[in-house]
């Protein structure tokens, strides 16, 4: 009897079953505002993320698709994995997302679709590759107007992405192909003249991407150093001049040269042994912002020259290491390029 009482004391409160006690349910609206609105818009009308409020989107995706997408994200396609949220919190967000559009989502079974992937491959090249890419890699860029014009209301999703393949059921993909998505360039392929069997074949081909998932630019980021550092054999002043010359020589425009603590301490009180050289290649900047406007966080380009105990060192962030934060494979290429540029500038300045 005592044992049962003890169990009751320990377990019942933990389950929130004490009469009168209540555990506050997660607030979907608040969670959405905090975690999703920045990309999908406060009203779900889209931004860098897809327009969740679109009725044709809402009606064609089951709750499980939304749940899994939030939980696992889209590796390399900006949408991150919300691993820090509990299941209850994600369910609350899904419930809130459903308030954006009236009506219930179309009921879709979990039954796999059977089709001929070889024929599907042929159809994919004819009908889908133009938007979704030859290998289902999706459209380029980050989405709807994220501070700059885009020519599509949404970015064609990457159908070969493991996050998409894990979240979307065969029946969901089939329904999208059959009905299209009103308000987006995705048309009904039934209306385009394909038969239901053709569509099944397409689904089978899309599902086959799972056998060879693409992971472009995949690397073990943890092994990459966050900072690029070179020792300089020159004095501080000469090294700063060398950095400026090396940057200009690589088509960068010098933005400004300042002390590290300039603006933080009163003018004249700065530590003159830490000098930042800012520079920019506006073509490169514009290209990077078009791929992912969030990357401005690490711009303009900067090299810091530091004299410490008579030794001069030159420092830069390592874009290769930081690219992982953005979850954007397209951006990784530019970050690798920027890493090489920093390395070359630092090498030349300290040669």
């Amino acid at each position, binding site marked *: 009897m005592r044992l049962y009482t003890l169990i009751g004391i320990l377990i019942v409160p933990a389950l929130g079953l004490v009469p009168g006690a209540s555990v506050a349910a997660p607030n979907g609206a608040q969670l959405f505002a905090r*975690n999703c*609105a*920045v*990309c999908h*818009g*406060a009203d779900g009308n889209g*931004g860098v993320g897809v327009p969740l409020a679109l009725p044709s989107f809402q009606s064609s995706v089951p709750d499980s698709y939304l749940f899994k997408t939030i939980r*696992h*994200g889209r*590796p390399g396609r900006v949408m*991150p*994995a*919300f*691993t*820090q949220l509990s299941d209850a919190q994600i369910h609350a967000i899904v419930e809130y997302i459903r308030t954006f559009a009236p009506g219930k989502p179309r009921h879709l079974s979990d039954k*796999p679709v*059977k*089709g*001929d992937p070889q024929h599907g491959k042929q159809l994919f090249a004819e009908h889908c590759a133009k938007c979704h890419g030859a290998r289902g890699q999706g459209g380029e860029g980050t989405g709807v*107007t994220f*501070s*700059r*014009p885009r020519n599509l209301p949404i970015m064609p999703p990457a159908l070969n992405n*493991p*996050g998409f*393949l*894990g979240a979307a059921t065969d029946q969901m993909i089939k329904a999208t192909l059959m009905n299209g998505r009103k308000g987006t360039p995705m048309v009904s392929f039934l209306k385009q003249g394909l038969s239901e069997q053709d569509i099944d074949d397409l689904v089978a081909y899309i*599902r086959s991407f*799972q*056998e060879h*998932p693409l*992971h472009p630019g*995949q690397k073990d980021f943890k092994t990459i150093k*966050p*900072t690029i*550092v070179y020792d300089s054999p020159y004095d501080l002043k000469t090294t700063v001049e060398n950095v400026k010359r090396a940057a200009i020589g690589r088509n960068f425009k010098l933005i400004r040269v300042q002390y*590290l*603590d*300039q*603006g*933080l*301490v009163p003018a004249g009180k700065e*530590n003159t042994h*830490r000098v930042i050289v*800012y520079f*920019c290649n*506006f073509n490169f*900047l514009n290209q990077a*912002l078009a791929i992912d*406007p*969030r990357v*401005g*966080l690490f*711009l303009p380009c900067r090299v810091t020259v530091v004299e*410490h105990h008579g030794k001069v060192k030159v*420092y830069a*962030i390592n874009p290769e290491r*930081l690219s992982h*934060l953005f*979850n954007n494979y397209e951006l990784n290429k530019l970050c690798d390029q920027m890493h090489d540029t920093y390395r070359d500038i630092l090498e030349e300045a300290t040669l």
Partner: protein
Amino acid sequence: MRTARPFTVCLWALSLAAGLWVSGPARADQLLMARSMQAFPEAMLALQESLTHHGYTVSRVQRVDIGLKKMGFKTDKYRVVFFGKPKQVDELASRYPDLIPYLPLKIAIFAEGDNALLVTSSPLQLASFFHHPELKPVFEQWNHDIQAVLDDLRTSD
């Protein structure tokens, strides 16, 4: 016509799981982002006020959009706000020079229609870059403060 057999389904499931694991999905908390319902000029002002309120000095604002426009590119308002605590920046730069490229802290702010978006990397990321135990509380404090600043911006109207 090919049919999906249990073995094939298992193989798919395994390859999918492996795909998600190998690609190490980027976690949402690595970048701190917020949408302010205010227009850009008001959000910019609110950001600087909030940073000051939380004990930071704004050292500079980089006008990225001005530079781009001068070079003939089209862009909406885009700024990077640099901030820090003067004494802390000095001490950290002296003791941990590898941290210098990440100092002072910064938040990118840019217009999206009638709203403004704010982005910064989570200072907790720095803890995975720099393994000095004494730096951990510093990064945690920065993270706490920046989250508070972003909350201010989310709720301001």
